[in-house]
């Protein structure tokens, strides 16, 4: 699989502040890539550089094997962005919005109508086309934002905190569309989010802190390295649990035992089969990973 985004030694300073500091990472074509960090970690600066909104100080950025310094306009045709807040014209109709944005990519006349048909099929836009954007519900407006980001048939879809403030149903709808696009178009999705359960579904995760990468890997690798597993034990009394000689926490009708990893869990179960009759093993959560790596919690995510 080729690297569709390749960033090497990227640095961007604003005065004394190093917003992005010698950042290097790669995103493979077709993968769901999660880019995490608290506010001010350097996520938006990196995205703005990738989109050509901001110049870099040092480093190399390649998008679909094109150098951002030489082929920025070509790169812009390969990228679609869904922002956290809708940036469409709320007093214009959906059609007018999409028509004016498509024109900026040179998609006009019959080409626009054809693309609009495709997007209408994908996102069920037809009943909304004549409606004013400002009068749509949050979920409907998000669909239009996604449609706008797909107008130029991008290879990379950047989702910049796309589900913040959305209700669960709308969030689910958005992810269904994104999943379908990844399957049918092999589209690469570059995601920043405050919802850790969304990051848990990613193929690869990069965690940014103060402009630098503090951890990276697949969600499983990160969980194994930075978060403990849990065994939840049912139908036993406390005496038996305490005899195991491990840390535990009493829940309403169960006990939760904290263990370093799954193999340690297996060892414990094999050693005390009479205790482990009714139990479940749970992997650590991405929230724990993030907290253990950065020492900070992401604001806005669901706290479970």
């Amino acid at each position, binding site marked *: 699989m080729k690297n569709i985004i390749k960033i090497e030694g990227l640095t961007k300073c604003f005065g004394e502040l190093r917003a992005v500091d010698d950042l290097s990472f790669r995103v493979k074509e077709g993968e769901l890539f999660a880019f995490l960090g608290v506010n001010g970690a350097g996520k938006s600066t990196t995205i703005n550089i990738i*989109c*050509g*909104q*901001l*110049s870099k100080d040092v480093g190399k950025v390649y998008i679909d094997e094109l150098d951002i310094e030489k082929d920025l*306009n*070509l790169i*812009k*045709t390969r*990228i679609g*962005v869904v*922002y956290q*807040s809708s*940036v*469409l*014209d709320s*007093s*214009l109709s959906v059609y*007018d919005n999409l*028509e*004016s*944005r498509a*024109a*900026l*990519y*040179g998609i*006009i*006349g019959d080409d626009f109508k054809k693309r609009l048909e495709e997007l209408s099929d994908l996102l069920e836009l037809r009943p909304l086309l004549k409606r004013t954007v400002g009068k749509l519900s949050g979920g409907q407006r998000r669909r239009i934002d996604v449609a*706008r980001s797909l107008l*130029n048939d991008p290879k990379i879809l950047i989702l910049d905190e796309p589900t913040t403030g959305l209700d669960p149903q709308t969030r689910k709808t958005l992810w269904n569309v994104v999943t379908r696009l990844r399957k049918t178009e092999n589209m690469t999705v570059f995601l920043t989010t405050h919802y850790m359960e969304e990051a848990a579904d990613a193929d690869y995760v990069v965690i940014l802190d103060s402009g630098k990468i503090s951890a990276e890997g697949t969600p499983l690798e990160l969980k194994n390295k930075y978060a403990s597993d849990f065994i939840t034990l049912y139908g036993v009394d406390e005496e038996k649990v305490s005899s195991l000689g491990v840390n535990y926490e009493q829940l309403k009708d169960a006990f939760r035992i904290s263990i370093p990893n799954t193999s340690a869990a297996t060892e414990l179960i094999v050693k005390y089969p009479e205790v482990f009759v009714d139990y479940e093993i749970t992997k650590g959560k991405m929230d724990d990973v993030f907290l253990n790596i950065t020492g900070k919690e992401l604001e806005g995510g669901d706290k479970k």
Partner: protein
Amino acid sequence: MKTLFLLMKRNVKLFFKDKGLFLTSLITPMILLVLYVSFLGNVYRDSFTMNLPEGITVSEDLIDGYVAGQLISSILAVSCVTVAFCSNFLMVQDKANGTIKDLRITPVSPSVLSLGYYLSSFLSTLMICFLATALCIGYVGIVGWYMSIADVLCLYLDVLLLTLFGTALSSVINFFLSSQGQISAVGTLVSSCYGFICGAYMPISSFNEGLQRVISFLPGTYGTVLVRFHSTRGVFSAMANENVPAEFIKASMDAIDANFYFFNDQVSTQMMYLVLSLTIVVLIGAYILQNTVKNKVK
């Protein structure tokens, strides 16, 4: 080209969909007309009659036509610029609400984007100013009509050029603004000051010599003078036909800036058109340059 057209279509639609913005822009010239007629009409009339040489009489119709010409020229000279500042709100609004990000992530060049704002703002301003011109001409028709067809056409040309100038000036200034508060402040400042420094509220000839010299370097002044010249030329011609002395007519034209002097040399209308046109070209060039340079140094 089609991209530019669709961008302009978006901008113009947004302007007319924003009822507050559109109505404010539209009402401004009308309010000015009512205020001028109510408060300045008699000032202009008294100023003219008090300076009439003894033994010379000018008919009431002519005086009415003279006053009306002076009033509408003041209104139009100011409106073309203030309305332009009002309608050029969109480029700041797009920055304030983040829409500009969405436009700039596309491969469209910054010069096309800036030209889109300029041309759409120009079109919106022109529609309102042409409507205001028609209203003003209608008012002159009711009060005292002495304008020829050529005067009317020249007046429309002047309004066209002043609109191009006002839109270009507002584009260059608005480029530095990024919030709605800033544009309101600038709009208020321009509305209150521009009329004075372009000679619309008070004739430049009434200022002291030093100030007159400074104002003669401001290109907007030439637009005001052109509008005033074309809206009063018919009246002064009619006065000449009624044997009003040429010296008095010239003095009256000087007094209301229908004639204009640059360091004691009278400036021809051709020269005024040239100055105004060159200023428009320079301002548009500066505006496109601002956008292009900003895009490169981000």
